[in-house]
Each structure stands twice: as C-alpha cells, then as structure tokens.
C-alpha cells in the first residue's frame, strides 16, 4: 500500500514569490546590489585616485568638471572616488560586523535558550548588562584602547551589537525546543550539540537572516558615527563618516561635501532595512502557506 507523494515544491520559490510582492524590498535589494557592485569595483569606476591632492582645484562644485563629476573637497580630492572607496570601507565594516554579531548572538541565544536554567540566567543577565550601556559609549571606550583598523572597527561594532540577535534567537529556540521533533532527537540519543546545531539552528534561520540584514544597516551607521567622531577609519583612507567630519567646517559654503556622504549613508541604511523587512515578510512562518 504505497502512498502517493505530492510533487516537490520549492520552498525558495514561494519565498521569492512573496518577496517580489514587496515593492520597497525589491528597491532595497536593488540598491544593495548596486552598492555592493560599486564597492567591489570601486577602483574601476573611480575616475581619480581618492587620496590624490590637488590644492589648485579645491571645492569644485558637482556637475561642472567632467574629470570631477561630483566635485572636489577642501584638499582638491575627487568626491566621487572618495564616495566609492568610502563605500567599500563602509560595506566591509558592515558585513564583517554583521557576521560577528550574528555568530556571537546566535551562539549565545541558542545556548541560553536550549540549555536553560543557570546558563540561561547568566547569559541573559550578561545581555542585560551589555544593553545598559549606550552602544556609542561602548564603542568609544573600546576604540580608545584598540588601534583603529578596518578589522578592529568591525569586530568592536560587532561585539557591541549582538545582544538583540541573541534575544531573538533565544526566543525562537524557547519555542522550538518544546516541539516533538526535538524530543524525538533526544529519544534517539542525540547530543545537546547535535540538537542545537542540526535540529534547532536551521529552524531559526529565518529570523537570523532578517536580523543579519538589519544589522548591516546599523553597523554602517555605527561606523559612520565613530569615524565622524574621529575614532574610526583614519584619514587619508576615505569613509563616509570621516568625509562628514571633514565637511563639517564648510557646511554653510559647500554643502554638497556633507550632503553626498550623508545621502550615501541614508541610501545604504534604507536599502538594507527595506531588504530586511521584505525578507521578514517573505520568511515569516505565520504567513507560510504549507498546511
């Protein structure tokens, strides 16, 4: 009595179908893709060397000189080239920080959620403690001790922003671990590690993915904060944050120097946030169409 089996139906295809209906998310995905491409090929697209000084050509306004499409800054450096290279820095920091955040947050969230008891209490009180400090202060304190490099900035941002992720993951695990498939794994003699990694983690993938996307946006923002405050990416290396710092003195006379990196940050953060929102809607298990 062999039972009929329905044709396989791609789960991914259905996720994509729901994602496609979300216009802003599509726009976000497009912006993110564009930013990634421009950052990846920054040195190809950039018309000039972003660190090349030419004091005879300071404050060229945008769209007036074809060699400097977006004008030049107070030292005569090409703004477009600096934006492109700054984007490379921002996205690198954003992605590395996101990976750090997600790894730390998921690890702590799964351990707290599945092990429960004293481990849960200790880990969650640690999270509460971390959340007591405003992130910017944490960042500045650490940045004062750690020499700023791309990697150290990313790690510092990542290690001060994983708390939300760990709470999301823990909540998800608390719900999942009561399911019978976990009891079945225990009845088979599966180890705790196996249950956490093989049974629970894949089921928490959707909220982790959404949190990861949103974390890129906040890491880009964080990087620009600390670079703006002078503790982040150091000149002459361009970053959107330190471009803003430099533009500060000329805001009333040459506003585009501040507006352009500001717009780049806004666009990136919005792009990732919309993408994250769209993913959340597309992956939300409550909207899942299977029985």
């Amino acid at each position: 009595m062999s039972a009929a089996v329905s044709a396989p139906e791609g789960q991914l295809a259905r996720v994509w179908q729901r994602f496609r209906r979300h216009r802003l998310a599509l726009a976000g995905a497009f912006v993110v893709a564009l930013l990634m491409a421009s950052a990846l090929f920054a040195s190809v697209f950039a018309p000039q060397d972003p660190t090349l000084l030419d004091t005879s050509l300071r404050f060229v306004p945008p769209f007036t000189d074809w060699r400097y499409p977006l004008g030049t800054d107070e030292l005569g450096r090409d703004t477009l080239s600096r934006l492109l290279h700054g984007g490379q820095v921002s996205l690198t920091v954003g992605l590395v920080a996101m990976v750090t955040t997600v790894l730390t947050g998921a690890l702590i969230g799964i351990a707290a959620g599945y092990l429960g008891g004293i481990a849960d209490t200790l880990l969650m009180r640690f999270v509460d403690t971390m959340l007591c400090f405003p992130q910017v202060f944490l960042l500045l304190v650490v940045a004062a001790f750690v020499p700023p490099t791309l990697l150290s900035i990313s790690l510092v941002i990542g290690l001060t922003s994983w708390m939300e992720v760990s709470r999301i993951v823990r909540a998800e695990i608390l719900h999942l671990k009561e399911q019978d498939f976990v009891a079945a794994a225990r009845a088979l003699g599966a180890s705790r590690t196996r249950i956490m990694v093989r049974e629970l983690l894949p089921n928490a993938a959707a909220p982790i993915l959404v949190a990861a996307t949103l974390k890129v946006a906040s890491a880009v923002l964080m990087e620009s904060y600390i670079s703006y405050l002078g503790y982040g990416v150091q000149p002459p290396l361009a970053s959107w944050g330190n471009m803003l710092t430099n533009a500060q003195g000329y805001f009333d006379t040459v506003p585009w120097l501040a507006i352009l990196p500001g717009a780049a940050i806004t666009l990136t953060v919005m792009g990732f946030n919309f993408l994250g929102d769209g993913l959340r809607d597309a992956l939300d298990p409550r909207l899942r169409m299977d029985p």
Partner: protein
Amino acid sequence: MAEPLLQVRGLEVHFPIRSAMLRRRIGTVRAVDGVDLEVARGETLALVGESGCGKTTTGKSILRLIEPTGGSIRFAGEEIARHPPARLAPFRRRMQIVFQDPYASLNPRMTVGGILAAPFEIHRIGDAKDRAERVAALLRTVGLPPEAARRYPHEFSGGQRQRIGIARALALEPELVIGDEPVSALDVSIQAQIINLMKRLQAELGLAYIMISHNLAVVSHVADRVAVMYLGRVVETAPREALFFDARHPYTQALLSAVPEPVPGRRRARQVPQGDVPSPANPPPGCHFHPRCPLAIARCAQEAPAPRIVAPGHAVACHLVSP
C-alpha cells in the same frame, strides 16, 4: 512468568510549582504519582485515561524524555531510572517513541532522508551509502516510496508523516515502542491504516508496544493488556477481554460506559462520575477517585487502596473490590 521487558515500579513525576518572583517552591503537580506497569516482549499494553491523567507523562518519563522524580524503571532487567545520559545511550536504541502530532514531530527543515538517517548518524552506524540504503528500506517497510527521502515533511499528508515517524522509531530496531496517541491526530479513515501498519510491524519484528490512548475503540483493537490511569495512578490493569467485559474498578466502569455501544442494549446505562477531575496539584487524599465515586465509603478518603489481584493478570486498586 519470564522476566518482563519493562518493569515500572512506583514511578513518580512531580513538577514543582514556583512563585513568580522568588522562584520558591509553593506546590507540586503530581502528574505521575506511583505508577506500576509491566510489559512483556512482543505484547501491547494500552495505557488509557482521560486528558491530564498523566499517561503521556508516564510514557515520556519511561524514555527519560521527562525526568522521573522517583520510582524504578527496569528495562530488560537493568535499572535505568537514574542512569546518566552516557549510560542511557544503549537503551535509546532499544526503546523508541511515536508521537501524537505528526506535524510537530518531524523537523520541517530536514528532508525525510535526513530525518531517517539521523538515528544511524547518532549511533555511528554505517557510512553514507549504507545509511541511504537503510533509509530506503525503512521507507519501504512503512509503505512509502524510496523517493520520499528527498522530500520535506510538509510535502506529505498527516498519515504519510506518521508513517515517517514510525520509520524513524524503527530505525534502530527497538524492542519497545511507545505510541503516544499515535493515531488520534489523524482522520478516522487513516487511523485504521496506521494501526494495521503498527500491528503488522509488531508481528514481523516482535515489538512490544505501550499504546497511550484515550480512544477505547482503538485500544480494544490493538491491546493485549490494558492499564487504566486516573490522576497519576493506575487504578486497574487487566487483559483486554477482562477489562472490557469484567471491569471491576468504578472508574473503569464509568469510562467504559461512556463509549458509544455498537451493539445496542448489551451494557447497562451510562454512569457519569459527578464533578470534574481534581487538579493533580491538589489531589484528594486516599483514593484519588473517591470524591467522584458513586460507591465511595469513609475508608476511601483516608487510605489509598493498594492494587489487589482479582484474577490472573487482573489487578484493581479499590477498597470495595474483593479478590
């Protein structure tokens, strides 16, 4: 009688009730409160009772999925109630479980092949190729095509999923399978298929079953012996025929009288116990059933009745039953 495969004595599962703020223990839920059971090799023991009587907790604590707080569990002669996880591992292969809800018991992110290969991975049996063959064989055993291994659980119906759950339970060739209401979540037409599958597998593989159920029609079809639970205790244990035609405990009689009778006029009128089932956090003293029992006497409120043998294999925990 030869040594039983499983012998449970005085099993207790008590859950603490803690206060919200200080986590002080302010009470105890006696979900399982001194249960004795025996299962022989190859037989089916049905564990019946109302919702909340502790039958599922009993089943899960035998498998140590819920930690028992007291009593003894002997499997094939070895006491396992207090074994640490490492010493429990060999018994995991010999005792398995089929869950009630086939939608919750299969990991939605794993393929059926992954789900069925897990037992072999956990116990380091065979290599990848060998495991794939075993998975295909398991699927055939439960009446599913081997191609099912590539699919995800959500692509199957409830009955098909329950077959997958049964295949997983059989993977390690256990001697005892606990069925926790294995058919109650299925359509009636599918229930018979799954029951027949389980009976066929029992005959082929010599399995012993503990069938947890509240459905006496299912029980009358599959059980060799029946244990009736009320509020954390077994009130009556009997061979199937004796239970259905010669129930002695007032609770069992009330339970049987609630079953729709396919042969009209054969049994006396329904006896409906008064009131609700008391809370297991605050069970009545003496016999747990006495506040609802139509026959209760003063002694029932003071002294918990010990099971007494009224016929071979037929034990009743009631003061009013004489051997």
